[in-house]
C-alpha cells in the first residue's frame, strides 16, 4: 500500500549498480558465444555460426568434459565441507571464553589473504621436497612421508579443496555467527527443557532458524567454488594431468591463452546455465517466508 513505490525506490540504487554494470557486458558475451571470434585471426568478432560452439563443448571436447567433472566434484565437496565446518565452528565459538574470543578474532585473517597468494603459499608449503606441510604430514603419519601431494590426482584435488576451505571456512563461520547473534534464545532454551540433546536442539531449532543464513552461505560458496580459478593457477596449475582443471580455468585458458573468444563465451554461458539451475534450486530454500514471530 503506502510502500507501493518505496520498495522499488529502495531497490533502485542496487539494481542500477548491478544492471548497469553487468547486464551489458553479459549481453555482449552472449552474442559473442554465437560468433566465431579468434583473436589470432581478427581483432573484431567474426561471423555468426549459431550454436556450433555449444555443440562442440557438449559433444566434442574432452577438455570440457573433464573440467565439468572436476568442477562438479570440487563444488560438491567444497560446499558441503564449508557449510558443515562453518556451522560447526560457529557453534563452538558461540560461547564466551578466552580461547573462543581469540579464535573469533583471527577468523577473518585467512579470507584476507588473496586466493592467488593462498595458492602460492600452499604450493610452497606442500612442496614435495621442501614443504613444511609435507614434512608435518610425514612426521605425524609415517606412511605419508615422501608422499607427493600435488602429483596425485586425488590428493592434489584435496589440497586444492583444503586451501580453499582454509580461506573460506573461517569467514563463513563469521557469517553464521552473525546469523546466530540475531536469533532469539528462548526457542533453544525451550527445546533443551523439552529434553532435546544439544544435537537435537541444533537439528530441530537452531538450524531451521538459521536456514536463511545457511542458504546464503551455501549459495555464495557454490558461486565461488564454481568460479574456482586463482588457486588452480597458483597451486596446482591444473595438474597433475588435468585432474584439477576447473571450468573457470578452462574458460580462462580458452580466452586468454588460446584466444578463442567465441568458444570461451559459450563455455562460460554453459557454466552460467549450470549455476542458474543450481541457484533456482537453492532459491526455493531462501525465498521461503522468513521464520520468526
Amino acid at each position, binding site marked *: 500500500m503506502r510502500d507501493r513505490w518505496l520498495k522499488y525506490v529502495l531497490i533502485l540504487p542496487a539494481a542500477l549498480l548491478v544492471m548497469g554494470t553487468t547486464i551489458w557486458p553479459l549481453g555482449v558475451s552472449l552474442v559473442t558465444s554465437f560468433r566465431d571470434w579468434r583473436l589470432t585471426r581478427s581483432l573484431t568478432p567474426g561471423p555468426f555460426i549459431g550454436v556450433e560452439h555449444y555443440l562442440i563443448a557438449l559433444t566434442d571436447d574432452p577438455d570440457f568434459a573433464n573440467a565439468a567433472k572436476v568442477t562438479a566434484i570440487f563444488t560438491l565437496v567444497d560446499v558441503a565441507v564449508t557449510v558443515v565446518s562453518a556451522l560447526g565452528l560457529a557453534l563452538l565459538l558461540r560461547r564466551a571464553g578466552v580461547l573462543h574470543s581469540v579464535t573469533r578474532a583471527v577468523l577473518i585473517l585467512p579470507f584476507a589473504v588473496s586466493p592467488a597468494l593462498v595458492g602460492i603459499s600452499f604450493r610452497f608449503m606442500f612442496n614435495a621436497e621442501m614443504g613444511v606441510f609435507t614434512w608435518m604430514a610425514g612426521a605425524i603419519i609415517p606412511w605419508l612421508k615422501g608422499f607427493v601431494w600435488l602429483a596425485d590426482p586425488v590428493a592434489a584435488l584435496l589440497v586444492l579443496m583444503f586451501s580453499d576451505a582454509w580461506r573460506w571456512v573461517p569467514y563463513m563461520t563469521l557469517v553464521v555467527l552473525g546469523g546466530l547473534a540475531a536469533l532469539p534464545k528462548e526457542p533453544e532454551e*525451550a527445546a533443551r*527443557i523439552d529434553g532435546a540433546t544439544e544435537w537435537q536442539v541444533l537439528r530441530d531449532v537452531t538450524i531451521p532458524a538459521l536456514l536463511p543464513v545457511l542458504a546464503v552461505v551455501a549459495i555464495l560458496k557454490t558461486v565461488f567454488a564454481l568460479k574456482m580459478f586463482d588457486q588452480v593457477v597458483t597451486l596446482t596449475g591444473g595438474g597433475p594431468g588435468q585432474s584439477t582443471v576447473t571450468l573457470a580455468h578452462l574458460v580462462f585458458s580458452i580466452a586468454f591463452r588460446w584466444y578463442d573468444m567465441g568458444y570461451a563465451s559459450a563455455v562460460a554461458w554453459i557454466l552460467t546455465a549450470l549455476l542458474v539451475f543450481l541457484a533456482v534450486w537453492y532459491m526455493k530454500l531462501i525465498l521461503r517466508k522468513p521464520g520468526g514471530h
Partner: protein
Amino acid sequence: MADVALLNVTKRWGGFVAVRDQSLAIRDGEFMVLLGPSGCGKTTTMRMIAGLEEPTSGDILIGGQRVNDLPPRDRDIAMVFQSYGLYPHMTVGDNIGYPLKLRGIKGAERDAQIKAAAAKVELGDLLHRKPRELSGGQRQRVALARAIVRRPTVFLMDEPLSNLDAKLRVSTRAEIKHLQHELGVTTVYVTHDQIEAMTLAHRVAVMNQGEIRQLDTPEVIYDRPADLFVAGFIGSPPMNLVTGHHGDGVFTAPGGFRFTTRVGHHAGPAVLGVRPEDVTVAPAGGGDLDASIYAVELTGDAVLVTVMAGEARLIAKADRAWRAEIGSTVALRLDATRLHLFDAATTRRLNPEAPR
C-alpha cells in the same frame, strides 16, 4: 514426581543481585506459586531450577539430588516461558509434539496426545498454523500445551495465562489444577493474578527484591501477612494501611483512629492494616470513624469507595448497588477481628493470631 529445593541460592549479574541467598523447599507433588512484584526474581528462580541459568552460588536439588551441573534435559522438567519460546518454523502441532518426538513417541499415539493437549487449551483448529500466524493468547496456549503434553517430574510455569481472557483463563486454570492434582507433579508457578494464586497454590512464596518474604498457604498469606510488604502486595485493591502510634494495646492515628489491639509488647510507631472488604461504609455517624467520599469506582461485581479519614486515604468495597455523592460524609466500620498491626520500624507483623 520429586521435591525441589533451593539452598542458599544467589544469582548475580555483575553487581546486580537478582536472587539473594534464597532457600526454598518445594515438596513432592506440591503446587507452589511464586508471587512478587515485577523484577523481583521469579523468572530467574525458575530458570535456575530449569538449568537455563547457573546460580552464582548455592545449590539446586531435585528429588534430593544436587543438579547444579545437570543440563536441562536431564532434569525432566516442563516449562512454560513467559515469552513463550515457541519454535518459529514448526506448526502448532509440531511445537506441541516436539517433546513427544524427543521421547520417541510416534505416529498415531503422538497425534492423539497432541490433539488432547491442544484440546485442553482450545487450540484444536490451529494445529497447522505457524506461530507467527497466531494471536498473542494463542501463542501462549501453544506454549502451555507443549508443557502439559508430557508427564515430567516438575512443571515450571511462568505466567502461563497472562494473555488469556477471563473465561479461557478460568477454564485453563481448572485444567491445570486438575492435571497437577491427577498427576501429582511438583509445580512451580509464577503469576501476578491473586485469584490464580489463591485457587491454585498449596503454598505461596511472596518474593521481593530477590528474597522470599513469606512462604505459606494462600489463606495465611492473605489473612496474616507477615510484614508490611506482603500486606500491601497481596489483595486487590490492596490493604489499607494507616500509619499511627501503638502503645498499651491501643493503636491511634489522626482522623479518629483508635482501636484496641491484643498486642501488649509493642510501643512506638506502628501501621494498622485493614482490607477493603473488611471496611463497611455506613451512613454518617454509624461507625468507628467518619470520612468523606473521595471517589467511587464500579468494578462490575462491587463498588470501590475511596474515602479520606483524616490524612489517611482508605478504600472500602461496597455492594455493587451502593452509590453516594463524592464529598459527602459517611461512617466507616472496621472489622475488629480482621485488623493487622505492623511495627513501622521493622515492618514485621505484631498481632500473631489469625484474624479469624
